[in-house]
């Protein structure tokens, strides 16, 4: 029997897998089938076709052509439930001439893309009433949208954002490098995905800056807390310990009791004990933006955020404030879907934008006075 001609994988027709299976199952090829039924087809077929055959269910679900050339490809895992509804199309971003279609922010319906920032440090600021706040400085460096996709498992659009151009391209692994090459983006050190509504899906290559946010709005900041290693219960859970004197022997910082006696006769799972502390992903919610530095892409946020200096943080519009329609001071001025820049040729004249809510507010230092007759 002549050996089959070796063809490159991309030019194979999509029915090649099924034809191979039928060939292998037919009685004429009984001498080619493996003796033991537990072995898969891959032991015999590589020599026939010259390429690796995958598990039949995966091979049937996506063809190689679909995997590499579809914007909204989603891997189908065997045994996982599939979402029956079709992926929703994102709202059209530009009209025929290529101009942006203006959009409005609607509470409850819109979810904008987030950004990635670096925690730089803390600084003291005084607002217009003279109140002092400790503010964290967050810097947005080289944020670009890598790609957008439809996540069938979650049922929403996801926008992948990359931050900080990678300085050493030779250190990147090939799959990661090829991921950026496929979408035409300079390789980034950090990428993350944000869930967005259909009218906020962004094109690959869109630059995100500090102007994406509005001073006076609330944001959520997610980051990994500083790792503190293996710590005792006093530091980890705030236990009081035992006295230093009065006869207490060798148990000044220990847990003490871990439960009752014969009943229940065990220690409950979740009992607070010594262990590894820190290094967890935490979200600080509803932090107010006091000031935005437009030229250096800095955001001054009231309060503290998790992580050490230069740590990567995910920023997004505060969801709890969105529920109660208090996230933004003025919905009209929210850049939708993101800040694309002013008019062509416009130069930034002002470096810092502040909240500017003095006019309507009440002096926090003045007490309400009773009227004297």
């Amino acid at each position, binding site marked *: 029997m002549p050996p089959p001609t070796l063809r490159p994988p991309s030019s194979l027709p999509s029915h090649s897998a099924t034809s191979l299976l039928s060939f292998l199952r037919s009685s004429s090829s009984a001498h080619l089938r493996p003796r033991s039924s537990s072995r898969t087809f891959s032991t015999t077929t590589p020599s026939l076709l010259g390429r690796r055959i995958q598990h039949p269910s995966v091979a049937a679900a996506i063809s190689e052509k679909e995997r590499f050339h579809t914007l909204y490809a989603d891997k189908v895992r065997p045994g996982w439930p599939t979402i029956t509804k079709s992926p929703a199309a994102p709202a059209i971003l530009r009209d025929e001439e290529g101009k942006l279609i203006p959009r409005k922010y609607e509470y409850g319906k819109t979810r904008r893309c987030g950004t990635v920032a670096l925690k730089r440090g803390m*600084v003291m600021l005084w607002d*217009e009433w003279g109140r002092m706040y400790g503010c964290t400085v967050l810097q947005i460096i080289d944020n670009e949208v890598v790609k957008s996709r439809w996540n069938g498992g979650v049922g929403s659009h996801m926008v992948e954002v990359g931050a900080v151009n990678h300085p050493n391209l030779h250190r990147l692994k090939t799959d990661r490098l090829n991921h950026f090459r496929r979408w035409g983006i300079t390789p980034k050190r950090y990428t993350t995905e944000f869930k967005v509504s259909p009218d906020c899906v962004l094109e690959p290559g869109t630059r995100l800056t500090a102007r994406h946010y509005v001073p006076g709005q609330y944001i959520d900041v997610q980051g990994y807390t500083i790792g503190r290693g293996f710590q005792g219960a006093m530091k980890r859970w705030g236990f009081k310990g035992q006295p230093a004197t009065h006869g207490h022997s060798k148990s000044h910082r220990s847990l003490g009791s871990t439960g009752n006696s014969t009943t229940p006769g065990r220690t409950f799972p979740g009992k607070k004990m010594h262990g590894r502390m820190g290094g967890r992903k935490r979200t600080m919610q509803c932090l107010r933006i006091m000031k935005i530095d437009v*030229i250096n892409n800095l955001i001054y946020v009231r309060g503290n955020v998790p992580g050490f200096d230069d740590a990567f943080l995910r920023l997004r519009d505060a969801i709890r404030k969105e529920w109660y329609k208090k996230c933004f001071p003025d919905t009209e001025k929210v850049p939708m879907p993101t800040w694309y820049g002013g008019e062509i040729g416009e130069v930034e004249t002002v470096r810092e934008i502040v909240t500017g809510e003095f006019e309507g507010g009440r002096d926090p230092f003045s007490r309400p006075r009773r009227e004297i007759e």
Partner: protein
Amino acid sequence: MSIRTFHTLFTRSIRCHHQVRCPPTSSVLSVSSRNYAKKAAAQEEDAGAPLGPFYPKPAPLTLNRVDPPPDTLPDWKEQKTLMASIAEEARLRHDFDNRSELFRKGSPDEVEPGSVLLIEQIASRSRPRKQVFAGVLIAIRRKGIATNIVVRNYVLGTGVEMEFYVYSPMVTRIKVLKRITGIAQGGDDIYWLKDRPHASPLAFSKIDEMVIRDREAEKRRAAGAASA
């Protein structure tokens, strides 16, 4: 004292044996809120016109680069340079009357702990009533824009320490009433003065007359400026 004397001192009954002068019932035992409110209103009428919103000096378009202090660890991602530049620029923008020269180490106008300072501050911008506190400077905490000083004095026999943030917009005036050197010996604080007030070169009792003299001098200056 015995329970009986305690009772007789505070009773309003005429049947007490001791010649106790019973206090009048109306104004002391129940504080007249109307009198208090009138007094507060009178105090606030001389507060002056409400001040507008506070804005620091406008930011220049470029952030001037300031090198971090030389004994810090290497600056891997330009974080220390950025924060040092921001802190320096914030200090310049919040300094309206050159008061950073008083607290900068190595400046010719440097004030040492042990000196007597007078500090005027306001409680709110809508009712800017001036509150004056004078005392001995016992600590300078240099933290960039969050630099604060601790001033100690005795008010009605009780020791009081007040902390003031030097670059705060609510601190309107910092004046050196008497410059004293040699107490701190190069350090930034003299907390031991709390336990040894007699060791200060200037007696705390003299601070009140210095404040009065300063107030009269201000009035004369204001009158002279008005007439001229």
